[in-house]
């Protein structure tokens, strides 16, 4: 089985992805992009509880990297077009996860994305977001609808954790772009120092 990095958000979908990866016997490392102060402490608390539940179920430890993402969001807000903020945010998440994967000798990235759930998850946006990384991306939930994902989450005991109160991401623009082109996104990224931003956040990652 392969070694991979699973992106964890604290929502309903990512623990289901982690569960499916563990069930298949993959060796996984979790990565959380910590969005404070645009959220509160709740995503991190939920993820720690998700990991406790799944580690107990599979009787194994899942290492987790917490990568600061709030400073990246501030840079994006100050320097780039707000409407494409979700795609730019996702590109930095992918890049940070890929850096962790390289450090951990992992060969794939996995996420709980499903098509069309939120503005950032259109096919067009997924394509522009993931063009920022080279590792293969696994999306075990992409063909499932929300009810199917929630049913699995309930069965494995992560649903009640995911649906606890929290602050939703304050960095989401009022009208996020649902169709973006790579050229448009690269033009926005020309206004910022992508490598410097990534170096700064990955250097400050905490392993739990």
């Amino acid at each position, binding site marked *: 089985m392969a070694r991979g990095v699973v992106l964890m958000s604290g929502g309903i979908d990512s623990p289901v992805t982690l569960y499916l990866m563990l069930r298949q016997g993959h060796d996984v490392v979790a990565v959380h992009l910590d969005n404070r102060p645009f959220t*509160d402490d*709740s995503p991190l608390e939920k993820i720690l509880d998700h990991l406790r539940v799944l580690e107990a179920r599979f009787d194994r430890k899942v290492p987790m990297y917490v990568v600061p993402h709030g400073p990246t969001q501030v840079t994006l807000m100050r320097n780039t077009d707000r409407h494409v903020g979700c795609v730019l945010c996702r590109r930095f998440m992918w890049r940070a996860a890929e850096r962790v994967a390289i450090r951990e000798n992992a060969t794939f990235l996995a996420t709980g994305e499903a098509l069309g759930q939120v503005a950032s998850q259109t096919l067009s946006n997924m394509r522009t977001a993931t063009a920022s990384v080279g590792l293969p991306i696994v999306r075990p939930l992409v063909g499932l609808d929300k009810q199917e994902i929630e049913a699995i989450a309930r069965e494995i005991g992560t649903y009640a954790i995911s649906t606890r*109160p929290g602050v939703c991401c304050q960095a989401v623009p009022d009208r996020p772009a649902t169709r973006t082109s790579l050229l448009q996104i690269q033009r926005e990224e020309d206004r910022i120092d992508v490598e410097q931003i990534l170096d700064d956040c990955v250097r400050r990652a905490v392993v739990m």
Partner: protein
Amino acid sequence: MPYASLKVCSNRGALEAVPEPPTRLDLARVRTAFEAAGVSVLDCRVMLIARFEREVTVGQDGRLLIKTTDEREGRRVLERVEGLLEAARAR
């Protein structure tokens, strides 16, 4: 600036206040007023994140998100923010 209601946000983790009637804030002025009152501010250009007793996000449209679910505490913070927004407007 009048805030008619203070209600729990959709994710149930904070309180949200929306100005009535709709407004547009000059965030540079708001930041100056907050900092003059000793409140530290993270300026994100399109919003401010201010450290009152609880963290408060201030949008250009005047929307406030107060990171507490305790209504009494939220009202106390809102009162203070409203006063400073008035001061910012008067500058």
